[in-house]
């Protein structure tokens, strides 16, 4: 087309539990602008073609983590993926490995519970008073955990993870990475508590090292490395607890 638009067909998963027994596919033809991301086409459909389509989005700058979906079978942040890299047909489906609420909207409550279970907060034997001022942390100490703090909770890694696919209760890459992030933080004293969580069933030892989580992460968090390190720490912590003398009178 003369204004730089071209047409693409979007095959979108639709499911409304009020009406549908099972998900179905619906096709839309969309005139796409060369600068558009996948999300722009979904918003065009919503505004101009079919107002009943439901999807989540907000920041459209790849940081709020709302708009993860399967695009041509791969978990992607739709606000980040340029349409120019796709052919004439683009298939958009809800994130794999999650229950679907409606259309492209998945149920994230399970992830929220997993996140809470790893105690993703600073744990200290004695809380600091605010009057004591900021703690010191060297740039090197910051670098120890910084990468794992970049997780935007978009949950693409859960969609990519072959273990989650078979074992939905698996704690999963993002939650483990965030728990591990706090254990690595020089200001934290909670590693032992989190190692106990990590030694439980369906946590770090369920990981099969497929590395898919790291490959799909849009923020280069490398959750696979976090899971690996967390596994090692959980073992070392457990082993040393067998060797070290116990407190109390003999």
């Amino acid at each position, binding site marked *: 087309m003369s204004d730089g638009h071209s047409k693409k067909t979007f095959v979108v998963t639709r499911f*409304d*539990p*009020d*009406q549908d027994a099972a998900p179905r596919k619906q096709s839309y033809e969309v005139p796409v602008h060369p*600068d558009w991301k996948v999300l722009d086409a979904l918003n065009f459909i*919503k*505004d101009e073609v*079919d*107002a*009943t389509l*439901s999807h*989540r*989005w*907000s*920041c*459209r*700058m*790849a*940081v*709020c*983590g*709302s708009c993860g979906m399967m695009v041509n079978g791969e978990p992607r942040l739709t606000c*980040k993926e*340029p349409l120019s890299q796709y052919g004439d047909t683009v298939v958009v489906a809800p994130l794999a490995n999650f229950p679907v*609420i*409606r*259309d492209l*909207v998945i149920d*994230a409550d399970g992830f*929220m519970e997993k*996140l*809470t279970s790893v*105690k*993703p*907060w*600073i744990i200290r034997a004695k*809380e*600091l008073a*605010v009057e004591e*001022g*900021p*703690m*010191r*942390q*060297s*740039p090197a*100490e*910051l670098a120890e*955990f*910084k990468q794992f*703090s*970049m*997780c*935007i*909770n978009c949950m693409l890694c859960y969609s990519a993870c072959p273990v989650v696919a078979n074992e939905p209760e698996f704690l999963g890459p993002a939650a483990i990475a*965030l728990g591990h992030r*706090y254990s690595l*933080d020089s*200001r*934290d004293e909670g590693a032992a508590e989190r190692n106990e969580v990590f030694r439980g069933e369906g946590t770090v030892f369920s990981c099969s090292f497929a590395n898919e989580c790291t490959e799909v992460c849009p923020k280069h968090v490398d959750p696979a490395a976090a899971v690996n390190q967390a596994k090692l720490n959980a073992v070392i912590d457990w082993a040393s607890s067998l060797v070290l003398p116990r407190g109390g009178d003999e």
Partner: protein
Amino acid sequence: MVEVTRHDIVIVGGGAAGLRAAIAATEIDPAASIALVSKVYPMRSHTVSAEGGAAAVAREDDNFEMHGYDTVKGSDFLGDQDVIRYFVEQAPRELTLLEHWGCPWSRNDDGTVATRAFGGMSTKRTWYATDKVGFHMLHALFQHSLRFDNIVRYDEHFATRLLIDGGAVRGVAALDVRTGIVRVVLGRAVIMATGGAGKIFPFTTNGNIKTGDGMALAYRAGVALKDMEFVQYHPTGLPGTGILITEATRGEGGYLINCDGERFLTTRDYGVGTKAELGPRDMISRAIIQEIEAGRGIPGPYGEYVHLDLRHLGEAKIDARLPMVREMSKIYIGVDPVHEPIPIRPVVHYMMGGIDTDITAATSLPGLYAAGEVACASLNGSNRLGSNSLTECLVFGASAGRNAMAFAKGSGEGSEDALRRQGEEEAARIVALRGKQKGGEKLARIRADLHQAMESGCGVYRVQETMDATARAVAQLKGRYADVALEDSSSVFNTELIAALEMGNMLDVAEAVANSAAARRESRGAHTRRDVPKRDDQNFLYHTLCHFDPAGPRLGKKEVTLGHWEPEERKY
């Protein structure tokens, strides 16, 4: 049918201000039940998009007097001076708490927290975590909040009405987006923390969720919106998308360049003096518009722009301090700032105005508190300084949490029957709107026309005629909105219904913006008039109040609290 739940206090909004309020409330009483109602999962809140940093005195060469003076001068002397002094004194404490809660602040070699330069700030006092400060603060707050069992989250619940009985607010009605059920969430005090309203404009840094919901709810409940004419245009947004490129780019030494390769803030008089690129946002945005109008812009597919040049900072510094800017420039405009200048233009970013609150975050409605961008405590006056707003969310969020708890202690619960009835009325309104087929208007058209009206009348430069026209256009759009037709009748995750309810909120907020703007016949801060280019303290050194009335908004005035700094001509 509605479902009624009861808590001690109810917080609406799960961004920095709402989460800080919730944490403050748990600290007051670990046994209290605190409802946190948010239309998105809290970590999706728009705080996440803030980039450059949070201001608080941290260095030896800095003090509260300097931070306060910078802020009141930035406000063009419309900030309330008691509020400003309270804010600057609380700021270091709040950012320290964030540090204790795990925020990964960037560090100096000695392990102390690093600070960077920001526009209008006279020394380095902006704490940062590279250029993802809002993201890190939000996640640190949210993750810290998860340890408290008594913060009861209502994720993806859209609050649509304040419930009032016996002259005090007693809770909210909230649509459970997932089920379509309307819940009556009761508490003896309510805190609004829903953020701004950038989406009333077409070209904005704001995410899709920033539709002025809390402002509209308070406005319709009889609380005035204050200083709504002051809309901050951030100087550096990406053309087309409006995605924010942080002021930290200039804090770290970036230049603004016109089509002749000229650093126009140093070669021409735009009032910023030797601050150059580190002038305040209102002045820099005006300078860019003037450069473009003088023919020194650069034409592009989304209108003319100027360049933000970071190349001289070098790859190592850009990667260390501004990694997100590099990433986003590549993804969203196809430019690597290490090798090429970034196209930018002024973009709607922040509402200085909001729900009229006092220094305790209280409103005129007993039991209702507000904090963050949704509120107007009059910290920012007519122009906010960059990096004051994240700190503002913490300082006034904490204050709102504490003061709402104190209020709740001495307050009754109201009549549950009366509150339930209000909830049922609200549920009936929502059910009637859902999938409403009767009507001749399309939601997307109303939104497009609202955008067009707001941009033409309430831009960087304004004149009486177009402001009046915008106010009339918004009034007409409210009429058209009543005739909107919807397609989606599902009770489950009905985003068309949400968008329709948000549109109602946006129209109310837009009404307040346009009418407040048309009545201020002077230029001050971000409200810049071509037909009245001077500030007029004699006649306009007051806050604008805008009161809801079904027949059209009523405007009033409120005194500015002075007393510490004498208003003076604003020159840098």
